[in-house]
């Protein structure tokens, strides 16, 4: 009996099951990211080479692209949060008669069965038809920036709803009621209790929309009529030019990784109880 117990302590059968997973992630997630760092500081023959950094960061068009990327990502995130917040609130704390899980699947899963390129294309056609019949101009060619933001908000809205929803179902409802009982008006209740309780969700929703917005060059290209290049567009252009383009592409990726790291740090700072989970849709 004692030896059996000892044996069990020595070899954790269930714990060992994660080995294939760990090896896979190490090989295809961690190692490639290390390669990105390595490639950012070398040239195509593998020697230390820093001129690419100078070339990229002294180029004024690159700064324009980076600035535009931030502007688009910022606007998209703001609009996504503004729309997603009430939706998530209604789904998580609204009337019981609203079938939340069903609506979440409707909003989140089912549209994705139509590939996102096809959805973007349909959106472009519809938006252009809409503005040309009503206002006599094509949105994507006359106001490419607006077009890109519309496309991004359309595509990433579900990604803002889900983390907010996951945070809001954990919300302590008695606090809201207590604030109201103690004489706070609805605005005060919202600002003093609901917002502070959902900050981790807001930050996580920001990350979930800000990051993909920066990289999604397909939407930027087609909703901006080819005029709105963003960081993702530049990375794609470098990578598409062949293996020698991987080095400058890695530099830009490293910049993106840095921003991602910052946002994860911000999320960790606010979320003390552990990460907001993604599961539980079905």
């Amino acid at each position: 009996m004692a030896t059996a117990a000892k044996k069990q302590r020595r070899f954790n059968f269930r714990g060992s099951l994660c080995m294939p997973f760990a090896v896979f992630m190490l090989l295809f997630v961690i190692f490639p990211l290390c390669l990105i760092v390595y490639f950012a500081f070398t040239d195509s023959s593998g020697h230390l080479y820093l001129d690419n950094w100078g070339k990229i960061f002294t180029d004024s068009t690159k700064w324009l692209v980076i600035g535009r990327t931030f502007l688009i990502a910022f606007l998209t995130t703001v609009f996504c949060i503004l729309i997603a917040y009430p939706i998530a609130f209604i789904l998580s704390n609204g009337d019981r008669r609203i079938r939340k899980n069903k609506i979440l699947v409707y909003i989140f899963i089912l549209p994705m069965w139509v590939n996102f390129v096809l959805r973007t294309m349909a959106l472009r056609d519809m938006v252009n038809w809409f503005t040309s019949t009503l206002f006599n101009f094509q949105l994507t060619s006359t106001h490419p920036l607006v077009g890109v933001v519309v496309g991004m908000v359309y595509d990433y809205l579900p990604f803002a709803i889900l983390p907010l929803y996951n945070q809001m179902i954990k919300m302590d409802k008695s606090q809201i009621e207590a604030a109201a009982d103690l004489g706070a008006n609805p605005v005060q209740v919202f600002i003093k209790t609901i917002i502070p309780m959902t900050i981790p969700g807001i930050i996580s929703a920001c990350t979930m929309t800000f990051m993909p917005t920066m990289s999604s060059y397909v939407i930027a290209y087609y909703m901006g009529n080819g005029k709105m290049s963003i960081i993702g567009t530049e990375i794609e252009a470098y990578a598409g030019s062949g293996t020698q383009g991987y080095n400058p592409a890695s530099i830009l990726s490293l910049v993106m990784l840095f921003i991602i790291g910052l946002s994860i740090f911000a999320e960790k700072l606010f979320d003390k109880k552990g990460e907001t989970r993604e599961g539980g849709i079905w």
Partner: protein
Amino acid sequence: MVENRVLSLEETNRALKRKAISNKTKHIFSLVFVYFFMLLIYSPLIYITIFAFTSAKTTGQWTGFDMKAFVNLFSGRNKDGVEIWNATLNTMIVALTSATLSVLLGTLGAIGIYYSRNKLWKKSLQFINQIPIVNAEIVTALSLCVLFISVARLETSFFTLIIGHMILSLPYVVLSVLPKLEQMDPSLYEAAMDLGATQRRALLTVVIPDILPGILSGFMLAVTLSLDDYVITAFTAPKDALWEVEVGGNFLNEFKTLSTYVEGTMKLGMPIELRSFTAILFGVILLVMIGMYIKNGVDIRKQKRIRKFRIRRN
């Protein structure tokens, strides 16, 4: 300030009524809000579906009711039609293969993470699992390209495509299985062991059935993410078709999934066959919605019947 006086019956009734009405307006307002945005999300698909029934070159022009787009799609002689079905088949193969592998690896991974005794190991695995979720897709795609092409000196192939899609969906599988493990009663496994089951048998007959809902939702998520993906596919997909298809003397020998095929047609505008295909996809989505709606109704009625039965018994 709150007034301290006794309300008459009439006043109480009036106040209750007012509250009921305000609740009702709140309910209706929130329903309208949610369904309005849902309609917005589906509006491009509805738009394309409407213009699938006319054969004008560009959407937005109605040149009379026409089934040409559907006929072309199913005729088997139209190049775009055949390409669409070919791409659909490729997409399905990639989605099902990568989702199956992800579920296998992810379920084992989640079980391993949950039961590992080393806190640091557990935490770091969970952190690594989070990386592909927060990482920009294009960075993931580029890093894979660097690994496969520059370092391993491989050509992009079906294998690299599957790896790419697995990275996309694996974290979500782990995240949908982990909560189910947390909900599980730990004594069940111990009981199975005490009753003489081997570790493997206890796992297969006790743990797996218990976390099956999580595994299934992980599978659905994996398939969905794979169907939706473009960036990873564009970077890691093979150049040559898995098999050649002939249409009117031409051979389609490029490997295309739906996303890369649609991307290829985007500059020239959507071919009408793609419109009818979108209409069919939208039809499938509508059917699933109706199915869920009916299932929901049946579930609610079942619950009501159970409740009634309980009340009667009491």
